[in-house]
């Protein structure tokens, strides 16, 4: 592997990672290249690096998320940062007033990197305006979840060798999904063809204006595609409000082996997790040979290491500041 501790090259032209929107192909490629190196590192016995030595990373989660939070935590620790987790749960504390209060409190602790997840779209943006450190959006409402899109892109690129020209079908609750938004933006930027597949009641208004092909049936949506990306259906949306029932949803939009046959024979099956087996995806597919769902988790740590590293380079004393 290459020397990771050499004087670092600049990767991102921005102080924060708030979304996939606006990321250039050059930035994305550089992040994925760096993440590739971290994948190799993570497979070594000795995994510890010191590029974030002396840096403090705070994971501020207003919404519970075991996997994303632990992925960021591990990423920071592997790079030598001091990592603190703050889970702010409960309705009164998840209000926005407390968001800025919390931001001010944290700011006084002089963190270098702040990873934030919040139920409101734009929360990361608001925080970034108020704190003096690099902010990483780990999910803000139905807006964006850029590290998920990056890890998905890394997973696809390692398997398919490219992103450009691939057809990716994003299936399920697109309306409420920040994962879908970030993936649409990033994949579109990288030259992939993106389809969204969902019943109309789960499609965002003006979906066709996002540069995607819109399908309301799995049969046409999956046909010949290279990647099938399933989305999680939130429990509160299952009963009558947006779709009639779980069984009807599964019947028309669940991914099972028969339906997967419509896609390219080598199509990858992806899911951001946690999965609802038997709601949006059949276990036989989730655990099948085409599934790269566990690989996505592995790529998640590497991508987050790359993002932390890249943003730290732009901090004062980070080599590029």
């Amino acid at each position, binding site marked *: 592997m290459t020397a990771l501790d050499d004087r670092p090259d600049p990767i991102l032209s921005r102080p924060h990672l708030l979304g996939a929107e606006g990321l250039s192909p050059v930035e994305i490629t550089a992040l994925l290249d760096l993440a590739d190196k971290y994948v190799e590192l993570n497979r070594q016995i000795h995994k510890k690096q010191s590029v974030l030595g002396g840096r403090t990373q705070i994971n501020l989660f207003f919404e519970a998320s075991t996997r994303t939070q632990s992925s960021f935590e591990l990423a920071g620790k592997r790079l030598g940062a001091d990592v603190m987790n703050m889970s702010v749960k409960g309705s009164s504390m998840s209000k926005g007033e407390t968001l800025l209060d919390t931001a001010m409190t944290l700011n006084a602790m002089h963190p270098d990197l702040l990873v934030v997840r919040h139920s409101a*779209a*734009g929360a990361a943006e*608001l925080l970034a305006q108020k704190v003096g450190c690099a902010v990483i959006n780990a999910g803000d409402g*139905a807006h*964006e979840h850029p590290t998920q899109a990056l890890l998905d892109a890394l997973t696809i690129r390692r398997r398919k060798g490219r992103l450009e020209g691939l057809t990716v079908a994003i299936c399920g609750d697109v309306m409420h999904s920040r994962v879908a938004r970030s993936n649409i933006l990033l994949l579109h930027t990288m030259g992939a063809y993106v389809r969204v597949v969902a019943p109309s009641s789960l499609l965002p*208004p*003006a979906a066709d204006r996002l540069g995607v092909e819109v399908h309301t049936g799995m049969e046409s949506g999956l046909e010949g595609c290279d990647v099938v990306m399933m989305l999680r259906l939130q429990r509160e949306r299952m009963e009558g409000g947006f779709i009639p029932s779980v069984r009807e949803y599964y019947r028309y939009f669940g991914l099972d082996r028969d339906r997967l046959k419509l896609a390219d024979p080598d199509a990858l099956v992806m899911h951001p997790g946690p999965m609802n087996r038997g709601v949006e995806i059949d276990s036989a597919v989730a655990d099948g040979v085409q599934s790269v769902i566990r690989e996505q988790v592995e790529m998640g740590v590497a991508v987050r290491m790359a993002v932390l590293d890249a943003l730290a380079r732009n901090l004062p004393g980070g080599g590029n500041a």
Partner: protein
Amino acid sequence: MSGSAPDTGPNGRRAFVNARLVDPAQGLDGPGGLIVEDGTIVACGADVTADSAGSGTEIRDCAGAIVMPGLIDMRVFTGEPGAEHRETLASASEAAAAGGVTTLIVMPNTNPVIDDVALVDFILRRARDTAIVRIAPMAALTKGTGGAEMTEIGMLREAGAVAVTDGIVPVTNARLLRRVLAYAHDFGMLVVQHVEEPELARGGVMNEGEVATRLGLSGIPIEAEVIMLERDLRLVALTGARYHASQISCRASLDLIRRAKENGLPVTCGVSVNHLALNENDIGAYRTFFKLSPPLRGEDDRAAMVEGLRDGLIDVIVSSHDPQEPDTKRLPFSEAAFGAIGLETLLPAALSLHHDGAVPLGEIVAALTTRPARILGFDMGTLAPGTPADLAVLDPQRSWRVGPDSLRSKSKNSPFEHRMLEGRVLETVVAGRTVFALGAE
């Protein structure tokens, strides 16, 4: 109307000369002057000059500035009673005076809700004792704006309420609204409605469409407005009552208003200056000062509002002045309160449409003065002799930057913050008495 500014003061004879008189009610736009005596306009025209004014008259040389009727703003929220830290009637009146607004119509959505004769009286007394411009309330149309029981419309009218409305709360119950319209009609009371179907709008925080989708925010479709307006217009046709749609925001609503007027229904409507001057793209990166109800729409709908104003289909322009504090605005967009202040920027922001060549000055001034007066049944909003001397002296070309420090409202949530606006009020006169004069800057 009840609820007037103090009519004390010098009230000697004053002449505003060397002015450009603009008064759509008289079809007037030209050089001239105006004489005020005892709070009333006594002469107005090209022949009024410093020489003709007579001795003992205080002469105000306007140096070519516009003298127009003071603005009548039909949609203003204050925090009095209940949230005086946001805005009092007094502070709203200071802001109004600085914007050339001489009459404020305040909405009943206070704490408590203005749904009772005693509360109407409270507003009028507080206005008389503390405010420097005229203030009159619209009273609630249903008790507590709960949408279930109608208020004492006759007695509220007698007490001085100028219309009934539930303000920011739409009346959803069609049966109740039908009865209210029928009953209000007997008393000649104007019924004002916020046209938004709440179930379609529920959870929405901005205009539905591409911008909302990209921002990951829930949208409010224009259909929420159109459905409610269309329903209401059917009930107006059924009852014959006078009905005013407080604010419309989209082309489809304008089409409904056009048809209703063509059919001779007693219908009028307003638009906020925000929906004339701004669109959904101004929200940018979740700027909560642009979170309004109805939401800022797309550019085509904004352009439709301008056309509607130009064609006279939209009757009035309002500020929809709604003071919010940092506690309710410095939040993630979906959690922030709706509303923007606007009393001080109402006239200059509306003038931008004139400067753009989109709407003649006369139409803009009419929508801010003559027409609201007519809808509310006020014998004002004109420079005609015999009417109250409520005036705004305006330099239409003077530009200024809107900064939090330059705004008199207690709250600073202006969507025009940091913008350059062209047109500034130099002096505001209520009942012959100067309540605002622009200082040296």
